[in-house]
């Protein structure tokens, strides 16, 4: 089946799934999705390169969406509530939202380790749309 990324260049699957952002070589600011420039207003050099984010971060918050969002969200019928999580990548100084994978909201707790995975969002006649999700990391003890 043909696979299309939800946002070209925002993540990689190989060698391991990870988000891809941009990093300024002058001031270390990381942006996601990647930007063509550096968003730090006090940075004059604005010298950005593509950078993979850490594979694992910490759960900063979550919410379960109980009503189907409108298009372009593709809602299964019948709609099952989806959980959106916010994951903090401390070494990059950034937090990112994405769908929860491999767990239900009941099992979540603040601060638990979450890892990035790449999974299908939905499929239609033209194939599968894939994107990033976050799932509780193997063997997480929550720190």
């Amino acid at each position, binding site marked *: 089946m043909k696979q299309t990324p939800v946002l070209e260049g925002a993540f990689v699957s190989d060698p391991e799934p990870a988000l891809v952002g941009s990093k300024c070589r002058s001031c270390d600011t990381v942006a996601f999705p990647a930007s063509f420039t550096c968003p730090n207003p006090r940075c004059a050099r604005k010298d950005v390169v593509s950078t993979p984010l850490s594979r694992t971060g910490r759960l900063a918050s979550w919410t379960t969406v109980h009503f189907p969002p*409108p298009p372009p969200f593709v809602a299964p019928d019948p709609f099952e509530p989806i959980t959106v999580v916010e994951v903090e990548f401390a070494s990059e100084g950034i*937090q*990112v939202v994405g769908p929860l994978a491999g767990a239900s909201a009941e099992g979540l707790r603040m601060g638990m380790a979450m890892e990035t995975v790449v999974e299908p969002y939905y499929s239609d006649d033209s194939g599968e749309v894939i994107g990033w999700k976050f799932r509780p990391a193997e063997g997480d003890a929550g720190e």
Partner: protein
Amino acid sequence: MPVSDVIVAGVGLHPWGKFPEKSWVEMGAEVAMGAVADAGMEWTDVEAMVSGAMQWGGSTGMRSGNTIAAALGETGVPIANINNACASGGSLMRAAYAMITSGMHDSVLVIGTDKSPKGYFPSVPVLADEPRPPVDMVRWQVGVPNPAYWALEMRKRMEAYGSTDEHLAQVKVKNSRHGSLNPYARYRKAFTLEQVMASPMVCDPLRLLEICATSDGAAAVVLVSDKKARRLGVSPLVKVAACSLASGEFGDPTIRIPLLAAASDGAATAPLLSESRLAAQMAYEQAGLGPEDMDFVELPDNSSWHELQYLETMGFCDPGEAEKLLDAGETALGGRLPVCPSGGFSSFGEATMAQGILQIVEVTWQLRGTAGARQVEGATKAITEVYGAQANNSACILTT
């Protein structure tokens, strides 16, 4: 230094709700003429107009001011159409305020009229030949409706301060009681705690009754110079003592609608809702007044989370203290600092172009002492603040 004070000479408000039989043009024309008449002026006396650029109205909606002027009779005055999301009303006020303080004009008509889609606000279509999909498309594919952004912040608040589901519900109970006293409000039912807690979960912990609906609504005000106000015999003189506008600061940890990331809480170099904190600070500074001087506040209660957070963002209490003000009844009518005596967006719903102007209309009525059953006794000073997607905010302080 400003060459003139800015006075609210006239206000006009349309009831809020769903009006499938009525065009936003008619609603806008009605409030415009209402505000002009309330000011004791004629349509042909208006020197300039600013109007909300209403995206749901297509290309004529984006030029709503010209559309309304064409309906009521074109007079050749300057017209600016502005869109700053839910902060549009405040941004329009700021533009009109600047035209008068600078001495450019003696009267400016400010109009917000809006018909909203039902349910979640959808994304606005974009050109197909952009190289990458805009983030507003991607966030919908990820599945993040606007209330989900607020829910993510609310869960953090619960974790940090021990706020409860009951606190969220009590905000609605209070605002619905206020709204039940306002004939212009869309929802005039006073809800009980049990009824709010029984409403469906939308984005947990936020329930349906704890998130404002999307409404049709319209509001207008006429701002004039002090010279013009004297000529019109405006009394009492409701003065716009401050009108600020601010945008976000780099390093703010708020994940902005419709973005997908922000500085992490640990790495943040700016406060949550930095634009809102800045707008309030700028307004206090401009007016030479502080939060302790305010008799009441109309804040952006887009959700129960907003009401709790904005009490802190606007300087009324320390972080984690908003729930205590609520519990003590201080934010209810009759309390020390009534919050949203109009009933707020919780009772009116959101009409993004008009909601900031709705707040100015309410404060004007309150300061004139004509707010009826919801009157804040003896009120002479109040602050309004809106909350706009993608980090826009405006605050106004009105005094009499």
